[in-house]
Every structure is written in C-alpha cells, then in structure tokens.
C-alpha cells in the first residue's frame, strides 16, 4: 500500500497548480477509495497530474459524472481520482459541418441542449443520466438507437487523450471522413480509463428528426416454453422479425420484460418527417393492438435499476433462444431479472434482484448458455462484490492477449485504472 510513507505525492500534485483535494466517501471507485482528487481544467493540466503521478508512482482513475464508477472491476490500486467535472466546455460546434468538439466532462444532457439550439443532435441515446462525454466513451454504453446509429464509436471522429506519462496525443480530427493514421478513439472506446484519460472528443452530428413516433405493443407470451420451439405467431420473435426486416427503417426496436413470467412490451421508434405515416404501416406489422404515440414509454432509454446490472450481447436472431434461456436461468437461480434492450441490435440489459449468490448463479447460467450456444457474451456491469467475485465480471474476451499487449505499451507501469478491465488490464 501507498500511504503516509509517500507524503511527497500530495506535494507533487499540489505543485502542478491543479486544484486538488483529499478524497471523501463519494469518491470510491468500485469500492476502492482514492486518497486524493485532482480537478484539472485542461488537457495540459491532466498531463501535469499524470506526470506527477508518474514521478511518484501514483495510480490514477479518471471520472466524469461519476455515474458508472461502480461499474467494472475495482482498480488494484487507486491514489488519485482525476475528476474531469471542470472540463465541461463545448469547444466548438460547427453546425454547418455537423460536427461538435466537447471536453470530456460535458454531460450528454448539456451537450444535447447546445446542439438542439441549432436543430442538431448527437444521435445516440445514453441510458444513464448525468453521463459525460468521457464516460460515454470509456464505458461504450449506448441506448435504443444503437440499432440504427451504432454506438459512440460509430459517431466519434476525433479524440484528445492524455497518456500515463503525460503525453498529450490526438487522433482523427474534425472532419467526418478521415483515414489518416490509427484511430485511437476506437481503442479508447470501452477502455474504462485503462489506456489514457480522454480530454476531449469530436463527434459527427445529425439533424434533429422532424418527428418521432413510437409504436408500442404488449406481447402476452413473449417466449415459448422451451428454446427449441419454433417462433410461433404471437410470440415475441415472430413480432420482432417483420419489423426489423421491413424497409421502414425503424430507429430503434426495444423490449421491456420486467418479469420473466409476465408479458413483454415491444416499442419501435420511427424518426423523420413522415414518421407518422411509417408508424401506421409498422402498426400493421406489429398488430392491431399496437399504440402509436408521440411520447416514449416510461422505461425508454433507462437501464433496469436493481441489485445488479448485466449486459448481454448476441446476434439478433438469437432472440428466440436467449429469452427462454434467461427465464430458465431465473427459475433455476432464484434471481429475478428485468430485461430491457434491443436484441435487434444485439444488446440486452438485465437488472437483477436477489441475493448475491442467486445473482452469481444466474450470471453463470446465462453466460454458459450465451457463450456456448450462440457466441454471445454476458458482462456484469455492476454487481455486489460477492457476485462479481463468484461469477466473474467479463466472461470470455477473445482477444485478451492482444488487449494486454496494448495496455503494456500504453501504460507499462499500470498506473491508469489498473485492473478495471478483464484479465487484470
């Protein structure tokens, strides 16, 4: 442990001129409490903090809104929390170019406000309120419209990052089309702060859609009794397929299944000047009982909030097998899942209620099924410590050796969010 025998760390941090304070209760990173919090206001200040950390072998973890600090694995050590809340400036919104560059600490809500003033948006849904640009990239989280727009990595066109040794590097730029050099932004997406601290990011934007309409319907029996049964009419897979296969270009196809023994809601978002007309056609595909509204259902773009949160990644057509398997896992483990998300885009979020042991059992069953039968993944985003320890957080990571090698190059002394990712990365 690093403690009083290294008092010069604090002095070094203070010596950078960056605002620093002693860490408090609210500063824990997945249960690990840092010693100090640094509050840089520029990439240069982040670099100064990182150089001080390098000089005194201090481990640093970046944070933005702090909304997902409890996600991922706990860091193996954590001396300094680099809080980017002061870096909350939208640096440039080039509306004519449909491009925005924002500092990492800008929340997506604040960004949306700025963009909306010009009739534009970052066409992502971020399901955790208060998420910052940096946190969005570091966790790679995305909401319903990932079906049509992809995730942050698909809209990110440039990034500035500060490495463990204080090097400030950028890649990409502020043009949408650009293939010069490696795309560091991609590498940082989903990196949980282990490669560098994102200082700012540049995104391509879209015009705000003229209209948005949701088509919502309730499916009484989402799945058949066993996963081997075919997709029968009236069941969820048979309802989803015609929607995703239609040329109506839905922006999102989401399900909300709060109780695996109850009904499931299917909601489809259509955006555009002719959204209402297209929604009418969609309603014919989803059934007469479907409702067409101009407001989203209350659960739209919110993660199920329970004792634990999982992310399941699968191919779209696995829907018919995934849902029955999750129900079976629920019955077998005793954990109670609430399932939400878009299998049409290959991602479900699962909130779990239950004791840590039950949740761990559920994770094990769901993961075995996912990895074993349809090359899916089950990732524990947030869970009680005991669950995470018993079930493991990440599951299979195909390219882990390569990831380790990248980490070794970027942060050979493991001073940036050490251990936050799979395999000790």
């Amino acid at each position, binding site marked *: 442990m690093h403690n009083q025998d290294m008092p010069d760390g604090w002095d070094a941090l203070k010596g950078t001129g960056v605002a620093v304070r002693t860490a408090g209760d609210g500063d824990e990173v997945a249960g690990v409490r840092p010693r100090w919090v640094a509050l840089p206001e520029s990439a240069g200040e982040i670099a100064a903090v990182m150089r001080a950390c390098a000089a005194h072998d201090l481990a640093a973890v970046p944070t933005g809104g702090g909304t997902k600090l409890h996600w991922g694995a706990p860091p193996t050590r954590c001396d300094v929390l680099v809080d980017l809340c002061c870096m909350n400036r939208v640096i440039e919104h*080039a509306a*004519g*170019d449909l*491009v925005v560059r924002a500092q990492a600490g800008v929340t997506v809500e604040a960004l949306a406000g700025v963009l909306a003033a010009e009739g534009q948006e970052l066409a992502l849904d971020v399901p955790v309120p208060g998420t910052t640009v940096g946190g969005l990239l570091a966790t790679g989280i995305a909401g319903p419209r990932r079906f049509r727009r992809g995730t942050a990595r*698909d809209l990110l066109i440039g990034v500035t990052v500060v*490495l*463990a040794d204080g*090097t*400030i*590097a950028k*890649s990409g*730029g502020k*043009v*949408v*089309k*650009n*293939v*010069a*050099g*490696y*795309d*560091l932004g*991609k*590498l*940082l997406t*989903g*990196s949980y702060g282990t*490669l560098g601290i994102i200082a700012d990011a540049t995104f391509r934007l879209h*015009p705000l859609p003229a209209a948005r309409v949701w088509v919502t319907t309730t499916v009484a029996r989402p799945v058949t009794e066993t996963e081997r049964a075919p997709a029968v009419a009236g069941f969820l897979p048979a309802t989803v*397929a015609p929607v995703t*296969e*239609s*040329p*109506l*270009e839905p922006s999102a196809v989401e399900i909300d299944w709060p109780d695996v023994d109850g009904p499931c809601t299917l909601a489809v978002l259509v955006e555009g000047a*002719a959204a209402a*007309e297209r929604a009418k056609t969609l309603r014919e595909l989803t059934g007469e009982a479907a409702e067409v509204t101009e407001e989203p259902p209350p659960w739209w773009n919110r993660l199920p909030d329970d004792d634990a949160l999982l992310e399941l990644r*699968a*191919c*779209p*057509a696995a829907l018919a097998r995934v849902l029955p398997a999750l129900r079976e896992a629920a019955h077998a483990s005793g954990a109670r899942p609430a399932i939400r998300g878009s299998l049409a885009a*290959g991602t479900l979020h699962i909130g779990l209620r239950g004791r840590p042991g039950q949740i761990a059992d559920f994770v094990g069953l769901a993961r075995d099924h996912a990895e074993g039968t349809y090359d*899916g*993944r089950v*990732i524990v985003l947030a869970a009680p410590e005991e669950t995470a320890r018993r079930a493991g957080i*990440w*599951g*299979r*990571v*195909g*390219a882990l050796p*390569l990831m380790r*090698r*990248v980490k*070794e*190059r*970027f*942060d050979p002394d493991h001073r940036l969010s050490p251990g936050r*990712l*799979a395999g000790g990365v």
Partner: protein
Amino acid sequence: MTELERLTARLTAALPPDAVITDPVRLRTYECDGLTVHRATPGVVVLPETAEQVAAVVRLCGDHGVPFVARGSGTGLSGGALPRTDGVLIVTSRMRRIIEIDIPNRRAVVEPGVTNLAITEAVRDRGYYYAPDPSSQQVCSIGGNVAENSGGAHCLKYGFTVNHVLAAEIVTPDGEIVELSAHDPGYDLLGAFIGSEGTLGIATKITVRLSRAPEAVTTLLAAFTGIEAGGQAVSAIIAAGVVPAAIEMMDALAIEAAEAAVHCRYPAGAGAVLIVELDGPRAEVEHEFAAVERICRDSGAFEIRVAASAEERAAIWKGRKSAFAAVGRISPAYIVQDGVVPRTALPRVLAGIDRLQEEYGIRVANVFHAGDGNLHPLVLFDDAVPGEAERAEDVSGRILDLCIEHGGSITGEHGVGVDKARYMPRMFTGDDLDTMQLVRCAFDPRGLANPGKVFPTPRLCGEVPGVRKGAHPLVEAGIAEQF
C-alpha cells in the same frame, strides 16, 4: 543463399505447389497497386488459400526476420500494397469464398479476397446489400476495404467499412490467428484494426453487416453555372436537415472529361453539376426530394433531371463514376488527390486551388463528395513536358496543405500508404504519431507487417515495453529517427 532465398525454400515446402511465385517476369506484374508511381518488385509472392496458410507464411517471415505486405485486388490509390523487394507479398486473391450468408442475423461471413460488390450480388435478391460502396467496388476486395477503411459515395449517410464490419479473424504479425469481435468487452481492437493499412496484421475472415435495401431511391442531377452556386446548394441541403445518401459535385473540367469518355450528356454549359441521391422509406424520400429540388432551384440550378428507374440512375452516375479514368482523355497524365475539409470550408479551399492553378500553370479538375467535404482534385499534367510532373506533384502537395490549414485531413478514403506517409507530420504532432506507434508496437513489435507505410520513418518499438524510456540505441546512433 540470402535470407529471402532460405525463406522461399521453406514457403515452397509449406504451401500448395502453385502458390509461390518466384519467376522474375511474373513477380514484376505485382510491382504496384492502383497507384503506379511507386513500384517495387516483390522478393517473392505467395497465394495462400486458407487462414492457416497465411499464418504459416507470416510465422516463417518472423523466423527469418523478413517483412511482408498483404495485397487484395491491388486497386489501392496510396501504394498501401506496394511490395518490398526484400520481402514477401501475401496476395489474398485466392481466398474468395463467401462462407456464410445469414439473413436472420443480417450478416455475411466472407474471405478477404471476395469483392465488395460480390457480397451485395449474393444477397440482393433477398432485399439486402452491403452498404460501403467504393468506386472500385466491382473489383476491390473486402480485405483491402478493411485495411483501408473504405468509404464510397454513400458513406455520408451510411458510414464506412468500420461501421459495417462486425468481426474479423486476423493473423497477427507474429502469426497467430485471433478473432476480433464487436461482442468482446474492452478495447475496440476491431475498430483500431480497420483502417490500419495492413500494419497490424492480415484479415483472413470478415463478418460484415448486411443492410436492408431501401424502399425507394431517387437520384437528382442539378446543373449550375458555377461551382459556388453548387456549393451553396449543398450547404442549404444540409442546413435543411436532409441527410442524402450521397451528394457529389463535379466542376466544368471534370464534366468535360466525363463527356469525352462516356458521353454522359450532362446539361450543356454547366459549370458544375450536383448529384444528390436520396434513399430510405418512400414517404421520407418524397418529402426530402421536394426540399432538395426547391433548394437546388433557389440556389440557381438551371436544369434538374430526376432518375426514377435504375437505368436512369445509372445514366446520371455514369459521368461521375467514370471521372477518374476519364481524365485520361483530356490529359496525358494526372494525379488523383484525396483530401478532406470541413464542408463549410469548401468555397475557400476551392478558391485556394484556383490560385494554385494560376501560380503553377497546372490545370486541376475537381470531383468531390461534397456532402462530407472529401475532395478528389485531379491534377493534370503532361509527362512529356520537362518539369511539369514535378510542378503537378507540388500542386498536389499544396492542396493537402490547404486541407490541413482548414482543419481537414490528408486522406478521406484512399489511405496514407507509402504515398502520403511524409505528409503525416504535417497533420499530426510527434506525440500523436508516437502514440499511434504504441499500437503498432503492441501488434507488431518487430515491424515486419507492411513496414514503410502510414508512418514517415521506420519506427522502433524498443526492447523493453515502455513509453519513451530514454532514447532507443538506434536513435542515439543516428540510424533511425523517432518522433
């Protein structure tokens, strides 16, 4: 016996009988890709048929410390597949099986030598297509698309290769077969690999996303007296909240060339033509079309043509698609440039190009993807006139400077390759390039995968992993330079 000869003997033993090419006459046909100004006869060419064979070749290269370069159809325009005289050229043209078409999951699994268009052709009758459509789509390979992160005319709306590849099996520079998947948590290695121009390994199996074919497609051709009015129309279309599938512009000289080559019959007297393609649900397309047509008229279009059928659409696109090759009809030689500027900077950059034309006495034809600011200036010259080739080269380079000055990029889709490596330091700082180099070192510490491409000087990965812990011995000795 040289190292390469020793390696060749082992390659011959490891591969099928006709998969190793050593005859000098045959080797020379591989001396360049689509960019012919750079030429180098490969030391040896191999034509593997499986990922295992690719891995075996790469491992043998490692054993002998011999560099290797991957090549697909050899259509690249930045010399990314330029061979090494002291190395092995690994050609994927025999790896062209479509392994799986999986409509329910909207994806296809293909080998790297499959052509871009072959995927669309395989799924078209089921109502799907593969969205990225580089101009060379009938010949360019998916492996090459992955290496270059290829775009195309329609990437304004649909994005690039990186947005449409779901997974890739790659052979790493140390000869391991690794699966990179969008499903894996952690770093987006797949995203970093795509567009790395063969410097991080060789893709041997690629899973691509299939997109639903749009319900309606409308293509409109608007003729303007000058390029300014056309540019104004583009800005107005974007400001109106329309995202067309494509917006392409050609200037008078490019129109003249296309006319000479394919008799595309664009409106007479046009100083610029704009091609706008809208696609999507029929109701949306109708709505957008009305807006685009009005904007074009308001911006001064003196003639507007609309294609509803596939034939009429092909007629409109014919001139645009033939433009590069067509310039050969009005000039003995030319350089195809590929730069990007923020769309709003287009008028200033075009004015800058005009000034360059006057200063150097060199003509430049302009063809560009106006929607995303991707310029393809065609710098015309006569190689028989002494000094003209050099002047054209200067103009070409200064156009890139203009792009960088205005916050753009030195390449939008052709890649850096060997051709533009020297421009990289103009766009990026030493720290930027150094950081990119860390990725390279993680994948390819010995620098055997396509060395000399993308980055301006040989990069050193150091014996101990670490970020610049003192100077590398070779740097100290003055043998190599580090940024």
